[in-house]
């Protein structure tokens, strides 16, 4: 087993982890700020892929699809928050969970009715077709692009949350919504934006995953499970946790695939079990908020 193979394997792990990070991030932000466990996250990931595909074929360019689909689906997410989720704030955590669980069924069935239950081809954008010679092996250009794009999105997100006034309000809102209201901040609007952001990230994950997989109505269910595993490992509500855990899961899957391929899926659940035993609140989680 030579070093170049292991490096290639690490790289596929990072590419795999990048999509996990984006999807888990949406889930963890919504939980951290709103206390809502969004079970429709996987379905919205899938809707994102379909929307990206639809918008790309409408405009004739993948790039418009990549840009517009998260915005459009994020807006739909805001509508969902405004019409449905909003009524359930302050009630037990099970209520929004059940609501979004039901919503995911409606979304999946809706896509089956409109686009059919067969998969639809999602072509790789022509600029990114093929492989790049890295000297030690070949790696798909598209996957390298995904890694780079996710890095940029993370940077923008971090700068917004840490360095801007909006970010300050959001972070304060997560700590103590009552004080925020007393200070005259319309917390409802903050929550609306946060839910929209979470859903938009799910949709972005879906568009990014589209050219790597076949697009079909059930593509979100596995992603939802993976995203939950990542958020639990990273700590529910923790953004840094989602990033670290997402990459950790991607790389573990990839390295295990090299030595014991049939164990590749189980490894992430093993990792989760170990983390839960040692640190029940997750790697970067807050004590008292256990999974």
């Amino acid at each position, binding site marked *: 087993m030579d070093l170049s*193979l292991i490096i*290639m*394997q690490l790289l*596929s*792990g990072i*590419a*795999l982890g990048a999509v996990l990070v984006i999807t888990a991030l949406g889930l963890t932000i919504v939980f951290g700020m709103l206390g809502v466990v969004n079970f429709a996250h996987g379905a919205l990931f899938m809707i994102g892929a379909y929307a990206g595909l639809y918008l790309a074929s409408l405009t004739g360019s993948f790039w418009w699809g990549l840009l517009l689909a998260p915005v459009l689906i994020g807006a739909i997410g805001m509508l969902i928050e405004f019409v449905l989720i909003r009524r359930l704030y302050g009630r037990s955590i099970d209520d929004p969970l059940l609501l979004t669980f039901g919503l995911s069924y409606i979304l999946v069935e809706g896509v089956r009715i409109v686009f*059919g*239950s*067969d*998969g*639809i*081809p999602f*072509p*790789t954008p022509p600029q990114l077709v*093929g*492989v790049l010679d890295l000297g030690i*092996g*070949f*790696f*798909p250009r*598209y*996957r390298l692009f995904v890694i780079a794009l996710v890095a940029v999105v993370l940077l923008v997100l971090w700068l917004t949350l840490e360095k801007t006034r909006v970010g300050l309000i959001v972070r304060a809102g997560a700590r103590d919504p009552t004080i925020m209201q007393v200070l005259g901040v319309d917390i409802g609007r903050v929550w609306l934006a946060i839910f929209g952001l979470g859903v938009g990230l799910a949709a972005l994950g879906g568009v990014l995953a589209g050219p*790597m*997989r*076949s697009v*079909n109505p*059930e*593509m979100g269910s*596995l*992603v939802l499970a993976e995203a939950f595993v990542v958020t639990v490992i990273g700590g529910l509500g923790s953004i840094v946790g989602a990033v670290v855990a997402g990459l950790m899961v991607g790389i573990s*899957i*990839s390295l295990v*695939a*090299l030595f014991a*391929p*049939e164990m*590749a*899926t*189980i490894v992430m659940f093993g990792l989760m079990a170990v983390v839960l035993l040692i640190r029940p609140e997750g790697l970067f989680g807050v004590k008292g908020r256990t999974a």
Partner: protein
Amino acid sequence: MPKSGSTSKITRRTALAGLSAGAALLAMPRIGRAADETVRIGFPTPLTGPFAAEARDQVKCAELAVKLVNDKGGIGGRKVELLVRDDKLNAGEAATRTLELIEKDKVHAVVGALSSAVQLAVNEVTRARGVIYVSISQSDTINEAKDFSKYTFHEALNPHMTTAAVARQTLKKGMKVAHLVADYAYGHEMLRGFKRAQATIGADTVGEILHPFGAADYSTFMPRLMSLRPDVLCISNFGRDQANAIKQAVDFGVKQQMKIVVPVILHNQRLAVGPDVFEGVVGGSNYFWGLETQSKSAASFNTAFKAANGGAIPTDYGAYGYSGVGSLLAAMQAAGGTETDKVVDALEKLQYDITKGPQHYRKCDHQSVQSVLVLESKKKSAMANDNDLFAILANDAGSDELLRSCSELGHAT
């Protein structure tokens, strides 16, 4: 998830209730049925779930087979009725539905099932009640002596036949072969078939990678597969796993280095990922509409299907629905009715040719001896129309040679 847990509990309870009711019914003498009664065929198939598209094609084709017989006056004047049930790709659900079909709807025979686990469940129920079952699942475990009964028939191709035909077309002596295999019954059966064929041809295995069933990402297997430097990569998995695995192999530039070969090339998956991804991939198949230039039966099957379905063409899995129900009805016609023992006899003697050439059920294990097509996915520019997906590389005539021997399956010879 909590929901699926509670559903399966109910199913299990219903199944138990059904089982005891079934035992009580068996104790009673069978009451003779009136001669003018309809002939009822039960048809469990996964209408919901990942194979819904294949299931719908199967239903359309099965309905066509029934319609053609009814148009000609039915079986001895009796109309034929098809009772379609959704097995949800779940063995427990399939057993319950089959039991209902037999006990409540009083079907005369059952045709159907797509996955290997569902096929086994349906076969358990039908053989315990002495009802004929024609399976159209590509796994053939029910043909082995331990699960077989005289009521068990297998119309679909089996892993041994497809891998033998595909290997003969694509492998040569001295070639290096790598395997990417789904880690469950279907994948293991295909791998066994390929390795057997390799042994005869003299092609070496340089690596085997088992992947979890239903995986969405195959990228982590690609660097290793590339480093093995094989001439041929055999990908033995089914449904969306096939589409995803081939797509990602192509993304990694696998096709520039080696040939991709699959045991069964799937019509709907080729549609799902497009021509560029599948271009040059070779695989086995039971049916392709393009066979019509070589086979009169295929031409008339296509014509009948198009007429009934607004010009659409029948798919590979659809054809199983047609030949499964078609062969059963032909045997009922020969037997002059639905009396089980007579129909079993008639099926064993039947020579039929309804989709692609001569077929018959082998006496010892009731496997349908039939031709196997080897197809190659066409380049986009070479496609004459949207349905022109594949080129036919070979049409291997059916013979016992393609099957495992009766004694190998545990049958007395």
